[in-house]
């Protein structure tokens, strides 16, 4: 990394004066933003943020920022910021609002919630949060404590198909979640002598430079490429990073399981694996061999479109790569049998022995701040109330066994629509814009949400979801307006308030506390957010940080002590014995947990329920495989559509297809096209991508147009163009996780008007 002028950047000082500006060193952690918490310097003057700069001394991002944080000022001081609570003045969808005070808002919430809790029980209230940013835990905790409901979570996201399936697969197979090692566990990064640069990075179904998903700063991969790492990429599309790879496996979306099993089989048959490691640390090799045997390279080619020779080549490279780091992505969650595909990919990792060694795939055993807080709060909830959690009635045994932190979205929808097994009457939505984003079959969700007695939306701006269904809208403070703390993996980071919230906006924790103190004061004994935060800091069970929040603010970040090869020292298991945190103490290539609940112990491949192979008649009508959800630099999911600078670079919703496919339909670059299937129809602009696998259409998600009419039926045009309209609820895997967001079918036709 480059040399830094410490006269200007002051090492690790948390705050100083630079001319007319106060400079504060902290992290920016949503919203707006993403899963990352990049180190930033906020320049403030007279109570306003005047500038933002990446913190060159922060080992997480080394001063770098993506365009979204660089454009932070536009977000903070946007004229559409919500700055006071409002209640609905007209009908739902009319976008007519009346300004009210927080006291009035709390009175309304109290009255509605208590009426519903009295009549139907707390379980009739659901709390929907967005993706795992620092704005999520207060939402589920609010639901659990204030409303006494177990029905919290992403709410509308079919099969919890974002990281949930992979997390489940990691916990079952390896016993602990892991992440590719880019030196991020060590404060000195590449200067730490323990670290080794990966020989290969396997990027499976991920465009990490753009997505920065799951606490992984994508450009770390550039850092290791510069230091010699080579790449293997599995993706239907030639992304920029795929073009840099030694080998690219362009697969049909949804066939990841077959490709992974093909690689596994080749590794085993050719003995391209680490026998020393597998002898000692792996369970079920023979069973895996049998399960994978039918996936010959030729068969895999037939299924996945990946040439047979590439399967063999990939197995050979991966089987010899040391260290090998694997960064995988959302497609493994967004296919019905994605849990099994994730199982198979982990088998590849286990066979190579690239587990918890430097430069491979590492386990973190501490720093689960959000979980610590949530669990410490959950203790205040009546355990009886937890039992009614939707999705835990036995149909999906792993959910009932406690693997599910959240209510199952399909069951939440059923409860709303049919009152089965019991009705849901109120929904609290915070840090989420499901109708533009994560909800599959979004028009069905629109109808469902509109059937509710009472809906609260808390957000930064007025969103399509808020206009469409909210009875009450609450303004949320942004990251620089908020004191908080967060870790995802490491380090533990302070989020420091540098300016007061705009207008009457309040931060997520404060909203939770104030609603809690109103509705269930016995469970919220803290007089204010500071007191509550202090209590949280004292109860962080997975963190060895001794200081107060003030200390953390001044430390800015704190790296947990990190050790490699923890399976040798007993640090992965609560009994302190060497091994992995699984029933056999080994990495379970054959899962004893899956077996115990009647699921396949071995990884398997099954065709997507809807595909050219499984539903050929349907494919005649809808000949393209539809994949959705890829990110762009400009937007975090449905965020940032209202920022002129982001729209300058990315004005329209784009879908991508191969030149041959486009030519066969008489389509040209920039044409508006309809994408249509049995669920819905949307309109996007065509981008012809020579690197897209033939037969696949890639459609952007998260679209709405803040410049368009807010009121019904427009809802900022979200249903015109958002990919969720083409997805369906209920296409969930046998574990109860995973859904088909990345592998449905659709037709493409030109918009003629």
């Amino acid at each position, binding site marked *: 990394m480059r040399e830094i002028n410490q006269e*200007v950047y002051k090492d690790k000082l948390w705050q100083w004066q630079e001319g007319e500006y106060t400079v504060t060193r902290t992290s920016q952690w949503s919203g707006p933003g993403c899963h990352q918490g990049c180190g930033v310097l906020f320049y403030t003057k007279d109570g306003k943020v005047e500038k933002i*700069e990446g913190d060159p001394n922060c080992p997480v991002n080394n001063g770098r920022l993506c*365009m979204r944080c660089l454009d932070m000022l536009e977000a903070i001081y946007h004229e559409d910021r919500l700055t006071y609570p409002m209640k609905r003045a007209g009908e739902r969808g009319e976008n007519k609002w009346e300004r009210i005070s927080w006291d009035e808002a709390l009175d309304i919430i109290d009255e509605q919630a208590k009426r519903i809790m009295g009549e139907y029980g707390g379980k009739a209230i659901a709390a929907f949060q967005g993706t795992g940013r620092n704005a999520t835990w207060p939402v589920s905790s609010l639901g659990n404590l204030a409303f006494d409901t177990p029905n919290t979570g992403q709410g509308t996201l079919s099969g919890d198909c974002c990281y949930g399936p992979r997390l489940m697969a990691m916990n079952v197979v390896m016993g602990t979640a892991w992440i590719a090692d880019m030196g991020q566990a060590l404060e000195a990064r590449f200067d730490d002598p323990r670290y080794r640069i990966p020989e290969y990075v396997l990027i499976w179904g991920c465009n990490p430079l753009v997505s920065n998903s799951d606490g992984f700063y994508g450009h770390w991969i*550039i850092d290791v*490429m*510069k230091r010699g790492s080579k790449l293997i990429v599995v993706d239907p599309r030639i992304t920029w990073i795929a073009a840099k790879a030694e080998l690219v496996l362009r697969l049909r979306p949804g066939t990841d399981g077959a490709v992974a099993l093909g690689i596994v089989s080749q590794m085993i048959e050719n003995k391209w694996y680490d026998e020393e490691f597998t002898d000692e640390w792996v369970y079920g090799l023979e069973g895996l061999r049998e399960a994978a045997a039918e996936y010959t390279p030729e068969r895999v080619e037939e299924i996945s479109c990946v040439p047979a020779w590439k399967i063999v080549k990939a197995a050979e490279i991966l089987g010899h790569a040391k260290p090998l780091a694997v960064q995988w992505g959302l497609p493994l969650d967004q296919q019905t049998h994605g849990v099994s595909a994730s199982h198979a990919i982990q088998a590849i990792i286990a066979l190579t022995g690239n587990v918890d060694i430097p430069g491979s795939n590492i386990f973190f055993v501490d720093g689960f701040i959000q979980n610590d807080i949530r669990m410490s709060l959950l203790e205040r909830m009546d355990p009886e109330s937890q039992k009614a959690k939707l999705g835990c009635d036995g149909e999906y045994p792993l959910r009932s066994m406690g693997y599910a932190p959240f209510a199952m979205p399909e069951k939440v929808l059923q409860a709303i629509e049919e009152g089965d097994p019991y009705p849901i009457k109120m929904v609290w939505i915070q840090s989420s814009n499901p109708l533009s984003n994560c909800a599959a079959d979004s028009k069905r969700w629109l109808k469902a949400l509109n059937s509710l007695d009472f809906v609260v939306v808390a957000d930064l701006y007025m969103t399509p979801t808020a206009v469409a269904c909210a009875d009450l809208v609450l303004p949320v403070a942004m990251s620089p307006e908020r004191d908080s703390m967060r870790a995802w993996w490491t380090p533990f980071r302070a989020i420091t308030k540098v300016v007061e919230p705009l207008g009457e906006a309040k931060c997520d924790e404060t909203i939770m506390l104030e609603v809690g103190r109103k509705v269930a004061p016995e469970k919220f004994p803290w007089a204010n957010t500071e007191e509550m935060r202090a209590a949280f800091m004292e109860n962080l069970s997975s963190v060895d940080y001794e200081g107060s929040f003030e200390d953390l603010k001044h430390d800015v970040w704190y790296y947990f002590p990190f050790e490699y090869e923890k399976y040798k020292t007993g640090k992965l298991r609560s009994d302190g014995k060497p091994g992995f945190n699984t029933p056999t103490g080994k990495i379970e290539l054959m899962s004893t947990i899956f077996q115990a609940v009647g699921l396949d112990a071995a990884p398997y491949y099954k065709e997507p329920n809807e595909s050219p192979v499984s539903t050929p008649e349907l494919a005649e009508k809808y000949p393209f495989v539809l994949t959705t959800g890829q990110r762009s630099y400009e937007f975090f999911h449905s965020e940032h559509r209202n920022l002129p600078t982001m729209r300058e670079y990315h004005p329209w919703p784009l879908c991508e297809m191969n030149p041959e496919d486009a030519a066969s339909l008489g389509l040209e670059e920039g044409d508006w096209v309809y994408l249509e299937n049995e669920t819905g129809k949307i309109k996007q602009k065509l981008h012809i991508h020579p*690197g897209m696998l033939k037969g696949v259409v890639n459609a952007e998600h998260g679209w709405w147009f803040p410049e368009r009419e807010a009121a019904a039926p427009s809802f900022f045009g979200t249903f015109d163009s958002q990919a969720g309209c083409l997805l369906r609820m209920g296409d969930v895997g046998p574990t109860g996780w995973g859904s088909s967001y990345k592998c449905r079918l659709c037709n493409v036709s030109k918009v003629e008007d």
Partner: protein
Amino acid sequence: MTQYGLLIDYDYCDGCHACEVACKVDHGFQEGFDGIQLFQIGPRELSPDHWEYTYIPAPTELCDLCAERVAAGKLPTCVHHCQSLAIEYGTVEELAARVNKPKMVIFSVKDGA
């Protein structure tokens, strides 16, 4: 007279637009105006499985090499924020000394003071 400029390692520029936005917000450029602008080559398949997919940012007429920041001891904001750490600032001599591999280009932007 000494020339100052930017060295771009276009092997690693992945087209993230951070340089453009960093420059734009720092200088307050209006829509359609940038101090640095990204150009794209490809993606195109040169031979089976060999893809060219390249981005190169080029400083525009509006680039002042972040004179104010540099005077304050900082790096130009595009250099500071480039997510691939693919831009360096200096005299063209200093930059030329850093060209040690293919796919690097130096833009000589302005005369030194």
